[in-house]
């Protein structure tokens, strides 16, 4: 989780990613961020996020992203 927060903080140093649950709804992450984020997550955690999982619900909070990584890691 810490590694994920590092990736997120590098994208937006001024956002408190541990508490926000509206990253997509409030437009904090934009399409550029999503592409960067997916690439970095795939590299850092050795997973491959499929298109079906690239949906708003999975990216609204750090916890949701983390849950997605764990789910993919187990599969």
């Amino acid at each position: 989780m810490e590694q994920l927060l590092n990736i997120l903080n590098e994208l937006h140093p001024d956002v408190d990613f541990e508490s926000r649950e509206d990253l997509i709804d409030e437009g904090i992450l934009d399409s550029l961020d999503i592409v960067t984020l997916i690439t970095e997550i795939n590299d850092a955690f050795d997973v491959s996020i499929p298109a079906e999982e690239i949906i708003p619900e999975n990216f609204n909070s750090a916890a949701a992203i983390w849950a997605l990584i764990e789910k993919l890691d187990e599969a």
Partner: protein
Amino acid sequence: MLTNILQYLEGTAARLPDKLAFSDGEQGLTFGELSRLSRAIGSAVCARGMRREPVVILMEKSAMEIAAFFGTVYAGCFYVPMDAEMPMLRMQKILETLQPRLLICSAKTERLARELPFEGEIADCASLAACAENGAALAAVRAAQIDVDPIYVVFTSGSTGMPKGVAACHRSVIDYTESLCEALPFGEDTVFGNQTPLYFDAPLKEIMPTVKYGATTYFIPKKQFMFPFKLAEYLNEYRINTVCWVVSALTMISSFDVLEKCPLRYLHTVAFGSEVFPIRQFNLWRAALPEARFFNLYGPTEATGMSCYYEANRTFEEGESIPVGRPFRNTGLLLIGEDGREVAPGERGEIYLRGTCVTLGYFANPEKTSEAFVQNPLHHAYPETVYRTGDLGYLNEAGELMFVGRRDHQIKHMGHRIELGEIEAAAATDPGVRRACCLYDEAGRKIAIFYTGDQTPGGLGATLKKLLPRYMLPATVRQLETMPLTANGKLDRQTLRAMLNE
């Protein structure tokens, strides 16, 4: 004789009044409605005694915004699109440059408009559109309008931190529309899925053919571009058959196997540009849509949108580049060497563009205008202004233009044109920053900034966020003890580049 872009709209509105022209999926306007609202807005602007002056349009991307554009032209003025996502300081600089008397907003952007450092009148688009049409006033404007009058000013990145406003006239946009429509398979049945923001010249590719032919353009909500599956479903839902997107939007679909999982049923024309298309991704697109036609487009804002095109109708090998191709009809291409002469075939030179496509220049900026809009270097027999792009290219054996790169520090990132100097200038406004240097990591497609000073990386990030649009924000912000310098005291970009790749 076509001398005014409004002739396109008027012809189509008479022929196809009930056909949908522009829509965001929820709200749309037919050609009849678009024509009526544009004339009403034009009459309202006319009534303010305005003529040949800028009207700032600060609205969300919508059919109504298009009515505001055309309405401004009906009033004999030129529109300057701004966007709610622009940082406040950028908008402030644009307003300082323009000194406009009128800003048109929508219900959604009115609050933001009132926060701007702006002394002029703020008018709501819906209330302007509700005004009665004044046919006599519009006719008087039209009688005085000629095809070298400007119709828009759009702002691009400037290396000193001051955005430059490119002004384009009727004649250039008509020339672009006619030559673009001749080269690409557009027509009445075209259904565009627009991706590019309306505050650039890029959407002319969709707006102008739409009003010329009576086609339809859907403004795809920005959020769709974050979620590849939803994007593909959107294209199918609205039967979109033609897209002119930046490469990163196309690869968003192809890199997640969406082309297989959600086949695009209607898409038959794919134009792209502004960036290198990774060949593997391009071949995925071609394989998924074997019947579709693919076009690479190239051109600077200063030459009215796109200038060259290439139909990519074969498979490319890894490592190969897709050519930029040939100029549109009535556009001239020059490749000039450092000695100011044309280079030999196959040699690298700076790309100059000539023709009616060359825009009027930078708004209220004679200095920058004279640097880039120059006399044709091949003769001095009569005045002929050509545009120096700053791009380098060469002609391949087939005589097609190949793009090489820039001769300065301008980059293309996610389809946006960026001067790295503008990011450095923004960093320099932070009192905790002594010196800053920006680099572009081509491979990782990331902007990086190195700096010295007491400011924390997070603090500098926050400073930049206030000054720059999202797409210009560096992905890497790194603090250094000292800035590496070359023997003669210049910033050592090579050492910084090596540090980036460590």
